[in-house]
């Protein structure tokens, strides 16, 4: 019986004897485990990014949208990333707000205007999103929201603006773009519907508050001004873009949704936090499953590569196997030699694949993963990496079983007769 150390030495020798073939086989295993690692990391960050967006949402909120909202693109509305509502045909005005407010189990309705403006501060200007609503109601939408020191809420001051931390200090910029107490000019560009001409509406605002990061991307990228200021700056003429309907408790969300549906049918877009979370789960689950299946397939291809390589090696080395048996090697020695060869291929492939996969994941996430402009880095956990490593190595050993058994069962005479 060979001892373990000698089995590893002998198997390693045969791997290095057929360098190119061994390297190619290792590469096949490597691609599989690298893909698994990369996909796992991206999937985790994907799920994380989405759940972060909605984690801070109170579960008793329903989002009502008008057709204008869809122009804002992904992530523009708090409810924007769920199932896109069927194009609503109803104008969200004060009358509708009152009607919904009067429904049973509804404790509040928060109406908002949305739009994109150019912000000019000193010589710099940037484009930012406006969330026009009653600033006092911010806490209803994002219960964990906090302001920086020195912030003041001036809900009735039409020249007051409250900006998100990311707007005041854009990530990556050396100097703050906006500071408390300063004035900045907001400019809204639009096409006049009667004349068809490009027009601009400008107004100066004073930064009265800065919102600390909440994790809710709508708020974290917003400039909040009150409804009066939003209506005139964004030329809304009282037509809201979206409403937050607050049910008394999350138990009443379904009842309230049915009530609103019975009033407006499919002419209104309703999204609930519950529905969003469910959709997100399905969506990320499907994407992860799809990516994982690709990775698994390539891992299986790697395993088939191992089978082919070892099978070829068994054929090539039939005579050697016969000689070893004549010299006194046990069947279990021959079995171990080939299994360890598969194991070594697996270990090399999985380990290199792990490292390559980590890099690959960073590369992919920078180019592929949709985010709000900022790319979310893949998330790798020791657990996931250990799992992929063991799956790759395990699959390699399994792939080695059939050729190794075949080698160990060769009859010594027949093996010696082969040329």
């Amino acid at each position, binding site marked *: *019986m*060979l*001892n373990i150390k*000698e089995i590893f030495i002998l198997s390693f*020798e*045969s791997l*290095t*004897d057929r360098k190119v073939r061994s390297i190619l086989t290792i590469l096949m295993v490597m691609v599989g485990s690298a893909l698994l690692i990369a996909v796992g990391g991206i999937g985790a960050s994907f799920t994380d990014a989405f759940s972060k967006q909605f984690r801070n949402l109170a579960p008793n909120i329903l989002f009502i949208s008008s057709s204008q909202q869809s122009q804002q693109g992904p992530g523009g509305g708090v409810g924007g990333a769920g199932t896109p509502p069927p194009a609503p045909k109803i104008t969200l005005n004060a009358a509708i707000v009152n009607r919904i407010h009067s429904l049973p189990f509804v404790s509040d309705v928060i109406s908002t205007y949305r739009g994109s403006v150019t912000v000019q501060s000193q010589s710099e200007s940037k484009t930012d999103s406006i969330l026009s609503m009653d600033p006092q109601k911010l806490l209803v939408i994002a219960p964990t929201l906090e302001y920086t020191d020195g912030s003041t809420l001036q809900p009735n001051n039409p020249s007051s603006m409250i900006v998100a931390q990311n707007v005041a200090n854009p990530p990556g910029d050396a100097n703050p773009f906006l500071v408390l107490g300063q004035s900045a000019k907001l400019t809204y560009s639009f096409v006049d519907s009667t004349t068809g001409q490009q027009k601009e509406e400008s107004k100066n605002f004073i930064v009265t508050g800065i919102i600390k990061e909440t994790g809710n991307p709508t708020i974290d990228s917003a400039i909040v001004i009150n409804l009066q200021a939003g209506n005139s700056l964004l030329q809304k003429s009282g037509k809201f873009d979206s409403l937050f309907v607050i049910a008394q408790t999350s138990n009443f969300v379904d009842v309230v949704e049915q009530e609103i549906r019975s009033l407006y049918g499919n002419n209104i877009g309703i999204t609930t936090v519950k529905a969003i979370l469910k959709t997100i789960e399905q969506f990320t689950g499907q994407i992860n499953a799809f990516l994982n299946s690709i990775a698994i397939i390539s891992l299986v291809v790697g395993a088939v590569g191992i089978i082919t390589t070892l099978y070829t090696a068994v054929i090539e080395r039939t*005579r*050697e196997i*016969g*000689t*070893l*048996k*004549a*010299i*006194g*090697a*046990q*069947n279990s*020695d021959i079995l171990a030699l080939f299994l360890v060869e598969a194991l070594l291929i697996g270990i090399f492939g999985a380990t290199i694949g792990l490292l390559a996969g980590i890099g690959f994941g960073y590369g992919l996430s920078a180019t592929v993963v949709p985010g709000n402009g900022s790319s979310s880095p893949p998330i790798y956990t020791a657990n996931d990496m250990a799992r992929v490593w063991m799956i790759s190595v395990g699959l390699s050993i399994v792939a080695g079983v059939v050729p190794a058994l075949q080698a160990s069962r060769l*009859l*010594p*005479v027949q093996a*010696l007769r082969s040329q």
Partner: protein
Amino acid sequence: MALDTNNDSNNNNNNYHPSNGGNHDFAVSSDPTLTVENLSKVFESAAGRVVALRRINFTVNKGEFVSIVGPSGSGKSTLLNILGALDKPSFGKLFIGGIDIFLLSDKEIARMRNNLIGFIFQSYNLISRTTVQRNVEIPSIIARMSSKERANRSLRLLEILGIATKAKFKPASLSGGQQQRVAIARSLMNNPTIILADEPTGNLDTKTGNEVFDLLRLLSSKYRRTIIMVTHNAELAKKTDRSIYIRDGQIEKEILY
């Protein structure tokens, strides 16, 4: 120089315990005779039935150098393979040191081959990817000899066979005669009592073949190894102790020289 100078550590190679302290316990070196009884071998294949050996009976004594001679296809290799338990007979028995070999398990047979028998093949059968020295060491690696003892012993064997300078070379860089010497060194590595050689000079020119044969002759006369060699070279056969002539799977005659 003796092949078994470090007898202390090698003694266990001479003592074969097929069932780990069972009732077969014996020291082979005390009675290493090899006996075949009524040995027959039939190959059944789709192409038909070939009777390769018929009722073969003979005994080989300790230290004897026996040649098996016969025309091509007469069954010489088939016989030698059965003597080395590489193949099983269809009928009949093989006794080595009094033990009915084919009653043993495959595991025990492999262990017996490793400890008691050295094989030399016509085409050397060296492992090309590793060094000459490592080739020689393989039987002792299987026997789990310590690496230090392994190195000492393999180098000494290579010295005796006159190829010590080739220890670190790959077999492919050696001549045929040199490669066969490596194979002989390998067959001697675990200090076996029986050496089985199937046409060891078959691939060599006359001069080199004679040199390799002289080495075997020396193993037999000086070191008292039992050697059974298949050949169809009648000149060489005459220089062994005894020739068993085989024709059509049967013993035709035996000649004692």
